[in-house]
C-alpha cells in the first residue's frame, strides 16, 4: 500500500475504513484518489471518469465521512439524483450494504415506490434518499417532505450529462435552487460521462458558485475498430455472432428498438443472447440483466437502455451495430466494456452501407482522439419557467415576483431570464393557472391539479399504440400531442420509415393500414432519431473527397468497400458530394440534394428550400432528409437547376426568418406548440379536442411567449440554423460549389429518416394553383369562325398556343363552352334570329381575342361566366403568371355576385 493510499484511508471515518477492509478494498482508482480529498474539504465538483472505475464511491465515501463526522439537522441529509428509475434500483442494491455497515438509513423514492414505503419515508426520513428529478418535484408539493428537504446537506447528481442538455435538466436546475430556499446552501457533486465542455456541466450544477472539475480521460483506454458487416441482414447477423463467439461476454448496441428486436429474433435459436430495451416490461429487463450478470447469456442486444451505468457485471467487448451517430455516445457505450480498474475498453462498430462506413470511421477517429460533442443546456426555456412558477405558487400559496426572479437568477439555465419571467407570468394568468395582485403571484384552484399532471418536463405524454390491421401487429407508439394535432380518420402519416393511413382511433389505439398512394400532408414521427452533428457529416464529406482512410481505424474490407463505391461513382461520371461540393440530382420523385450537412442542417435547409419553391410555384413540396441528402418531392416541371437557382440565391441572414415562416404550418411545430401550451396550463394533459379545430386554436398563440418557446426549442433541438447559415455563406464565397446531375448511386442511398410536406405560405398560392388546375381541366370547343366548318372538343390545358383551322387554315378560332355547341351549329344558317346574330357577334369577338392574344385568351375565356367583355378587361391588364389568374378569379367572383348567376 503506497503512502498516498494510506493517507487517503486515514482521512476517512473509522467505520468507513472498517467497511473498506471488509470488502477487501486495498486500492483506490485514480478518480477516487483525486476526488475524495477535495470533496472532504467541501468543494462542489464535477467528476468525470470511465464507467466502472468507482465514480460512485469517489463521490459517496467523502459524503459518508461527513455524514458520520459532522452534526446535521433531521431530514434527508443526502439526495442522490439519477435520471432513471432503473439506475435508482441499481444504486440502491449497491448502497444497501454500505448503509448497513455505516449505520445510515438509505431508501429509494420514485414513481414505483409503494404507498407504504412513502409513508415510512415521511415519518422516518432516511439519511440518504435516492430519487429522480421528477420525484423531487413531487416531494416539494408536500408539507412534511418539504420539512425533510430542509435538512439536506449534500446533493449528488449521477449521469448529469444526460440531464444537462434537456428540459428535465433545466427544471432540475430550478429545483435545486428551490431546495436551497428550504435548506440553505449545500455541497453539490455531479458525476458525468466524457463531454466536450465540462465547464458548462459545472456551471449547470452550481450556477455562479465555485466548483472544481476532476477528470480522468476515457479515450486513452479505448480500443475501437470499424468493420463493414456486409449488405445483407444475414451477413450482418453472422458477423455479430462471430463477435459474440470470440468473447466471453458481449454487449451489442443498436440505434433503434426495431433493429434490436430483429437481431434478437435472428439469433434467438442460439439460446445464449437476450434483448434489452425500454419497451420491454421491467421484469423482462431485470431478468435479462440477471442472466447476463450470472454468465448464463453471452450476448445482450440493447438500445440506449444499457448505456447508463446499470451494473451487469463483466463485459469483454462492445459491438455497436451501425454508426453510433455521435462521438459521446460511442465513448459512453464502449466504456461499458472492461469493467475493472485498469483494463482497456474494446469496441467494434459494424457498419452496413456507404454512408454508415464513412460516418463510423469519422466517429471512431474522433472518439479515439477524445473529441466528444458539447452538451448544450436549454437556456431560458419559458415552459420550464411557467412550470416552476406554478410549482412555487402551489408550494407557498403566494410568492412575490421579486422572489421568483431571485430564485431563477441563481440557476445557470435562467441566470439572465430577466423580463421573460414577467412575460411568462402574464401568459399563465391568461390561462387562469395563477393570478397576480400587486407584484405577488397567487395560486389558483387549478394549479395543484396542473402540477400533479406536469411534474415532468419529459414529453412523456400519453402514448397511443399504432396497430397495423393488415399484419395485425403494433407498429410503434405516437405521442398524444402528435396525435391530436395531426391524426384523424383517413389521415396519412409516416412512422418507422413507412406511410400509414389511419382507419380508426379508439381509446388508446390507432388502427392503421399501410398507405399506398400517399400524397397528403405527411407528418412524420421518428421518435428514436439520433441526429448526426454537422462536424461529423462534414468530416465524412472530407473523407469522401480525400479518400485517405489512414488514422480512421477501419479494417481492410471497410476501406475496400468504401473505395469501391467511390470508384463506381467515378466510372458513372457521377459527381461525389463532399465537404466542398453540393450535388443536386434529378430523380423520378423529385430532386435529391446531396449535402454533407448532418440531420439538423439538412432539415433546416431542406425546409427553407421547400418553402421558397412552394411560394414561387404555388405547389406543395414533399421533403425527406437525412444526414447526407435532402429529397424534395416536386411536380415534374421542377428539376435540379430550378432548385439550384433557389439554393444559390439564398442569403445567410434570411435563413432564420424564412425557416420561422416555413415551420409555422408543419406538424413538428404544432406538436411542439401543444407541448409548450400544456406546460403553460393552457391545455390540460387530458383535454378533449373533439369538435374543435386544433389548428385554429393554436392560432391563438400567435405572437405569445408560448409560440416563442416552441420556435426556440425547434431551433435548438431540430434545426441547426447556425451551420445552415454557414453552408449558405460558403456557397456565396465559393468555399462550397454546387453541381447538377442525374441520380447517382450515392444520391439514391436510403432516405426516409424525416419526412414532411411544406405547403405554400399563403392561401393565395394554393387557391391560384387549384384554379389553374380547374381551368386546365375545363372542357372547351375550339371552333373556326371563318369557314364555320370545323370544331374540336378539347381541354384548356391541351389547347395549342395559337390554334388554326385545319379545314380552311384561318386563325380566327373561337373558344366556346360545351353548352355553346348548339349555337355554333346555327352559325351556318343563312337567316339567323336576333339571338343568333348576337351570339355570332360574341363569338367573332371571342375569336379575335384568341387571334391576338393566343393561349392567354383561351384561358381567360374558359373562366366561369367570363364573356368577351370580361376577358377583354382581363387581357388589358397585361397581367402575367399568378397575377393573370388573380384577374380571372376577380372576374369569376364578380359573376358569382350578379343576378345572372343566382337567377330565380
Amino acid at each position, binding site marked *: 500500500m503506497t503512502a498516498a493510499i494510506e493517507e487517503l484511508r486515514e482521512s476517512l471515518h473509522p467505520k468507513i475504513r472498517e467497511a473498506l477492509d471488509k470488502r477487501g478494498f486495498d486500492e483506490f482508482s485514480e478518480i477516487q484518489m483525486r476526488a475524495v480529498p477535495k470533496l472532504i474539504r467541501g468543494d462542489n465538483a464535477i467528476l468525470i471518469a470511465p464507467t466502472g472505475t468507482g465514480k460512485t464511491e469517489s463521490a459517496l465515501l467523502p459524503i459518508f465521512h461527513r455524514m458520520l463526522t459532522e452534526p446535521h439537522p433531521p431530514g434527508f441529509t443526502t439526495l442522490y439524483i439519477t435520471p432513471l428509475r432503473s439506475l435508482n434500483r441499481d444504486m440502491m442494491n449497491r448502497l444497501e450494504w454500505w448503509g448497513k455497515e455505516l449505520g445510515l438509513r438509505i431508501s429509494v423514492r420514485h414513481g414505483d415506490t409503494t404507498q407504504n414505503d412513502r409513508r415510512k419515508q415521511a415519518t422516518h426520513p432516511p439519511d440518504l434518499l435516492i430519487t429522480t428529478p421528477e420525484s423531487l418535484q413531487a416531494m416539494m408539493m408536500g408539507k412534511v417532505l418539504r420539512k425533510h428537504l430542509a435538512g439536506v446537506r449534500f446533493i449528488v447528481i449521477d449521469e448529469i450529462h444526460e440531464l444537462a442538455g434537456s428540459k428535465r435538466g433545466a427544471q432540475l436546475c430550478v429545483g435545486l435552487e428551490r431546495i436551497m430556499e428550504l435548506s440553505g446552501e449545500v455541497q453539490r457533486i455531479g458525476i458525468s460521462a466524457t463531454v466536450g465542455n465540462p465547464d458548462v456541466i459545472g456551471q449547470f450544477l452550481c450556477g455562479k458558485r465555485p466548483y472544481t472539475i476532476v477528470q480522468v480521460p476515457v479515450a486513452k483506454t479505448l480500443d475501437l475498430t470499424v468493420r463493414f458487416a456486409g449488405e445483407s441482414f444475414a451477413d450482418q447477423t453472422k458477423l455479430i455472432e462471430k463477435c459474440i463467439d470470440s468473447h466471453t461476454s458481449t454487449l451489442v448496441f443498436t440505434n433503434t428498438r426495431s433493429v434490436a428486436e430483429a437481431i434478437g429474433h435472428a439469433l434467438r435459436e442460439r439460446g445464449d443472447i437476450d434483448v434489452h430495451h425500454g419497451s420491454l416490461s421491467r421484469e423482462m429487463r431485470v431478468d435479462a440483466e440477471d442472466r447476463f450478470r450470472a454468465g448464463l447469456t453471452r450476448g445482450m442486444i440493447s438500445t440506449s437502455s444499457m448505456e447508463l451505468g446499470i451494473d451487469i457485471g463483466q463485459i469483454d467487448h462492445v459491438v455497436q451495430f451501425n454508426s453510433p451517430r455521435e462521438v459521446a455516445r460511442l465513448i459512453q457505450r464502449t466504456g461499458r466494456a472492461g469493467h475493472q480498474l485498469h483494463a482497456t475498453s474494446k469496441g467494434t462498430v459494424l457498419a452496413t452501407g456507404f454512408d454508415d462506413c464513412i460516418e463510423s470511421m469519422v466517429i471512431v477517429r474522433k472518439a479515439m482522439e477524445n473529441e466528444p460533442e458539447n452538451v448544450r443546456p436549454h437556456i431560458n426555456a419559458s415552459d420550464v419557467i411557467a412550470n416552476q412558477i406554478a410549482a412555487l405558487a402551489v408550494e407557498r400559496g403566494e410568492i412575490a415576483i421579486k422572489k421568483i426572479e431571485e430564485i431563477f437568477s441563481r440557476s445557470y439555465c435562467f441566470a439572465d431570464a430577466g423580463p421573460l419571467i414577467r412575460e411568462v407570468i402574464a401568459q399563465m394568468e391568461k390561462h387562469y393557472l395563477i393570478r397576480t395582485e400587486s407584484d405577488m403571484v397567487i395560486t389558483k384552484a387549478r394549479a395543484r391539479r396542473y402540477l400533479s399532471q406536469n411534474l415532468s418536463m419529459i414529453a412523456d405524454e400519453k402514448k397511443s399504440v399504432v396497430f397495423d390491421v393488415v399484419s395485425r401487429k403494433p407498429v410503434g407508439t405516437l405521442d398524444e400531442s402528435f396525435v391530436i394535432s395531426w391524426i384523424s380518420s383517413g389521415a396519412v402519416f409516416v412512422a418507422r420509415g413507412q406511410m400509414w393511413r389511419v382507419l380508426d382511433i379508439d381509446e388508446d389505439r390507432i388502427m392503421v393500414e399501410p398507405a399506398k398512394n400517399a400524397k397528403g400532408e405527411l407528418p412524420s414521427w421518428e421518435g428514436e432519431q439520433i441526429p448526426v452533428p454537422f462536424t461529423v457529416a462534414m468530416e465524412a464529406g472530407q473523407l469522401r473527397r480525400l479518400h485517405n482512410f489512414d488514422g480512421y481505424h477501419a479494417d481492410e474490407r471497410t476501406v475496400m468497400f468504401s473505395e469501391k463505391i467511390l470508384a463506381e461513382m467515378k466510372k458513372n461520371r457521377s459527381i461525389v458530394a463532399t465537404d466542398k461540393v453540393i450535388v443536386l440530382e434529378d430523380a423520378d420523385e423529385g430532386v435529391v440534394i446531396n449535402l454533407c450537412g448532418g440531420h439538423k442542417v439538412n432539415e433546416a435547409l431542406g425546409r427553407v428550400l421547400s418553402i421558397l419553391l412552394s411560394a414561387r410555384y404555388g405547389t406543395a413540396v414533399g421533403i425527406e432528409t437525412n444526414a447526407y441528402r435532402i429529397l424534395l418531392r416536386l411536380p415534374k416541371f421542377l428539376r435540379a437547376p430550378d432548385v439550384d437557382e433557389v439554393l444559390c440565391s439564398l442569403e445567410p441572414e434570411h435563413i432564420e426568418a424564412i425557416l420561422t415562416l416555413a415551420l409555422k404550418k408543419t406538424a413538428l411545430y404544432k406538436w411542439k406548440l401543444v407541448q409548450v401550451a400544456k406546460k403553460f396550463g393552457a391545455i390540460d394533459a387530458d383535454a378533449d379536442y373533439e369538435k374543435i*379545430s386544433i389548428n385554429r386554436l393554436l392560432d391563438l398563440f400567435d405572437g405569445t411567449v408560448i409560440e416563442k418557446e416552441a420556435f426556440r426549442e425547434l431551433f435548438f433541438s431540430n434545426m441547426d440554423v447556425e451551420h445552415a447559415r454557414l453552408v449558405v455563406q460558403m456557397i456565396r464565397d465559393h468555399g462550397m460549389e454546387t453541381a447538377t446531375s442525374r441520380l447517382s448511386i450515392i444520391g439514391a442511398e436510403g432516405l426516409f429518416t424525416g419526412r414532411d410536406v411544406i405547403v405554400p405560405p399563403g392561401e393565395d398560392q394554393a387557391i391560384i394553383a*387549384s384554379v389553374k388546375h380547374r381551368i386546365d381541366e375545363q372542357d372547351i370547343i375550339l371552333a373556326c369562325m371563318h369557314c364555320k366548318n370545323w370544331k374540336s372538343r378539347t381541354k384548356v390545358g391541351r389547347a395549342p398556343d395559337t390554334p388554326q383551322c385545319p379545314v380552311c387554315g384561318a386563325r380566327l378560332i373561337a373558344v366556346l363552352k360545351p353548352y355553346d355547341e348548339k349555337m355554333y351549329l346555327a352559325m351556318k344558317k343563312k337567316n339567323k334570329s336576333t339571338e343568333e346574330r348576337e351570339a355570332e357577334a360574341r363569338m367573332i369577338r371571342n375569336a379575335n381575342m384568341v387571334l391576338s392574344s393566343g393561349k392567354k385568351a383561351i384561358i381567360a375565356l374558359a373562366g366561369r361566366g367570363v364573356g368577351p367583355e370580361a376577358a377583354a378587361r382581363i387581357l388589358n391588364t397585361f397581367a402575367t403568371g399568378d397575377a393573370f389568374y388573380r384577374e380571372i378569379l376577380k372576374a369569376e367572383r364578380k359573376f358569382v355576385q350578379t343576378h345572372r348567376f343566382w337567377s330565380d
Partner: protein
Amino acid sequence: MNPEFYPAGPAVLIERNVRTLVIADPHFGVEADLHRRGLHFQSGTASRLSRLLTIIEESDPDYLVVLGDLKHMIPYVTYQEKNEVPIVLKKIREKTEFRLAPGNHDTGLEKYLLKDELLPVNGAVIDGCGYMHGHTIPASELAGKLILCGHHHPVVNIYDEVGCSLRGTPGYLLAEIDNAAVDLPETPAATRVLLVPAFYELAGGMDVRLIPGNKISPLAKAIRTDTAEVFLKDGTYVDTWEDLTPDPEDT
C-alpha cells in the same frame, strides 16, 4: 338578387328589396365549454363581436340574420353566456335589426330575445329567401326558394399534385335539393341550399366533399350532388362538387 361576400366573417349579404346580412354559427360563449374540456382560454366574445360589428358597419344591412347557434352550451345557459349574450345582443341591436333562426345550441336563449327576433325552427322566408339553421326539415313555404343555412360548418381542402396545399379553409356549398327527401311539395323552380360557413373561428368544420349524403342533417342527405358547386369565403369559385380534386388517398 345579388350576394356580396365578406370573407372576414365569413358573412354574406343578400340584396333584393332589402339588404340582409347573414352569418352562421357564431357560438358566443364557447370558452366555458372549452374550459370544461381542459382547454383554458380567455373569452373570445369581445373579438368575435367586434369582427361582427365591423362587418355590419361595412355592409350597412337592414337586417342581420344569424343562422343559429348564437350561443354554445347545450342544454343550459352558462355563467359566461348569461354575462355575455345580453351584451352581444344589445350591441347588435344598436347597429341593425336582428333575426335568429334558432339552432340546436340555442337552448335557453328565448328569454334574451325580443318579440320578433326569433324565427321559427323550421325556417322562414324573408324578402324571397329562406333562412334556417339547417338541423331540421324546412318549412313548406321554403320550397322552391334559395335556403341559406348554417349548422354544417363547411370547409374546403385543396389538393395538388404533391399534397394538400390548403387545409380547412371556410367555404360555401351551393346545391339543389331533392324536395321529396325533406317532405317539401314539388315546385317548378328547384329548391336550393347555400350552406354558410361558421362564423365561430375555432369550428372544426366538415370537408364539403363529405357533406352531401351525410347524416348530419336531412338537408345534407337531400343534396343533388350533380348540381353542387363550391366557393371560398370570398366568393371565389373553386369547382363543381363532382370535379373537386379528390383527396389523393381516396382514389
